């Protein structure tokens, strides 16, 4: 039973100093802000863990899920633009919105099924409807939204082809064309739920960085959805029709940037993964791209090339936000610091759940 080489699992807390002993390493880890300035010493907190292993488990989700968060938001915003454009006589924007929504939601569906451990059992989602499960709620939202957005998008795709297709399929296409308006409006009514429920999907977990973002994340996500879909509208529609897309994009970008800032300020130590590692890189990229896109749409939105470039920036920024928040959450679950320290602080403030 050699204690040499065996790392010490746990050690005294701050009030119980560790004696330095041969073969036993002090594995206390320092937390809090890194010292930028020797004069500005932040009192370091101390925490203990079991061999530095995670307390909670990171989700087993891979790129499918953040890709879905982005595409779901893109589809939702595109349905809103498509419906609005249909009502205000903007045929190119309408067509772009409806086809974008169909494409984005179809890829989303594939990503969601692919992410399952047993993809062949995806229909088991329809066994129950549970308000305590954001994934169950989301399944039902998509079950309503998918066919509506699908019908509107399919009508836009098929109607121009009707003349070239055999006579037998023309009546169903004509019917689809007549249903496109109501279906598109229906999709637009459900769309905001598609864009915002995905925030609860992340925050309703024990993953520290997601959970502590719970008050703000829905607003960040709808802002991100508006920016991405507005950006796509600017990319696909001529500037004469793209006014609403520009305004939606700009409003979304400002909402996303503003609320994200407030969110980080409210998160304490669990905001750290949004600045470090992969999550940090993505969040910085997201801010840069979103600011660029917002400026571009504000000052160059009436220039076709500038509008397209700004739109692409906004879409990329939105994707970076989703991947950044996803990665930051995963990192926060893998490091016991983000689970233990906030809970200890809660206990010390007398605000523990059991107090």
């Amino acid at each position, binding site marked *: 039973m050699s204690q040499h080489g065996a790392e010490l699992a746990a050690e005294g807390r701050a009030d119980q100093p560790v004696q330095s002993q041969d073969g036993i390493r002090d594995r206390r880890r320092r937390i809090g802000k890194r010292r930028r300035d020797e004069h500005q010493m932040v009192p370091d907190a101390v925490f203990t863990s079991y061999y530095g292993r995670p307390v*909670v488990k990171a989700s087993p989700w891979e790129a499918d899920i953040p890709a879905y968060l982005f595409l779901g938001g893109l589809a939702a915003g595109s349905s809103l633009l498509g419906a609005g454009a249909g009502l205000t006589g903007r045929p190119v924007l309408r067509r772009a919105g409806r086809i974008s929504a169909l494409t984005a939601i179809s890829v989303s569906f594939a990503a969601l099924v692919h992410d399952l451990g047993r993809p062949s059992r995806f229909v088991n*989602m329809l066994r129950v409807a549970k308000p305590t499960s954001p994934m169950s709620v989301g399944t039902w939202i998509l079950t309503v939204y998918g066919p509506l957005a699908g019908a509107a998008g399919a009508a836009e795709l098929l109607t121009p082809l009707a003349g070239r297709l055999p006579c037998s399929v023309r009546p169903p296409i004509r019917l689809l064309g007549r249903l496109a308006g109501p279906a598109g409006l229906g999709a637009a009514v459900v769309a905001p739920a598609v864009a915002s429920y995905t925030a*609860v999907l992340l925050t309703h977990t024990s993953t520290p960085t997601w959970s502590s973002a719970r008050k703000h994340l829905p607003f960040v996500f709808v802002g991100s959805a508006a920016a991405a879909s507005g950006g796509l509208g600017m990319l696909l529609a001529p*500037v004469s029709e793209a006014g609403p897309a520009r305004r939606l994009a700009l409003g979304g970008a400002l909402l996303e940037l503003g609320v994200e800032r407030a969110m980080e300020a409210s998160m304490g130590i669990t905001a750290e993964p949004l600045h470090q590692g992969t999550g940090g890189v993505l969040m910085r990229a997201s801010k840069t791209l979103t600011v660029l896109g917002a400026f571009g749409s504000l000052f160059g939105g009436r220039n076709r090339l500038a509008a397209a470039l700004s739109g692409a920036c906004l879409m990329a920024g939105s994707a970076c936000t989703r991947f950044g928040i996803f990665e930051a959450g995963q990192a926060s679950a893998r490091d016991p610091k983000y689970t233990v320290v906030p809970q*200890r602080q809660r206990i010390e403030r007398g605000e523990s*759940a059991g107090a």
Partner: protein
Amino acid sequence: MPSLSGPLHDPAADAGWQESQPRKGFFTDTSVCIGCKACEVACKEWNGVPDDGFNLLGSSYDNTGSLSASTWRHVAFIEQPRTPAGNTVSLGMPSTVKPGEAMSPDSATDFRWLMSSDVCKHCTHAGCLDVCPTGSLFRTEFGTVVVQEDICNGCGYCVPACPFGVIDRRVGEQGTKNVGIAQKCTLCYDRLGAGKTPACAQACPTESIQFGDLDELRERAAARVEALHSQGVGSARLYGDSPDDGVGGAGAFFLLLDEPEVYGLPPDPVVPTRDLTQMWRHAAMAAAGLLAGAVAAFLGGRG
């Protein structure tokens, strides 16, 4: 809708069982755990749980690592510098002196060993069960939480939902039993139905793992912690026994000799569902904001 958080006397009845059994649970008294891992082995054998890899982790005698889809009991080993005198319990461990002969103070080790057999907590308010979108995870008539392996589609949502990091999706080669779906301790649901003791408790040679009706286990645990305190073991404390904690009390709770995080347990676990109403309210506000924003984008401005 069932209760979302806070104390709840009968989770089985809350889940809709009309004739529920007394709530069953585990009291794991780590002060008498000798780290034999009989619980890990018995669990694997009875439940047919595949191996979790054969690794040397360099963490004392713990080469299992943590609870996972294929580890439903996990014995933690912690080597600590000796805490102030009088804070240890004699476990009757084999020693180098003859029986009856006192050990000289000089020969005493300068560190103590903590051992603890971790397991699913079978929470009163179970995060895993709340988020399960297929109904695969369910509350049994014994108040425990069990995965129905033929229903689970491996969405993985229960994994980040658990505040204790217990449940996981099984990884392995195609053909591995239940690969791709969520797995965890069932409190030996099959044995309970037959009036038997769960395999880990049955195998435990020191009664560190005690199984029984939760009400009775709580009384027994309170008496045990009091006895330890009177013997001078001030560091003994119960973990997960209080119905007022963030998960409404655990069905499987522990007597620990140090802070929970020393054993890899969260010091103040909370079921995410506690804040569910607030989260849905914020999501609804955000959705309404997006709809209003889109309407404004079409109504406001030129072009």
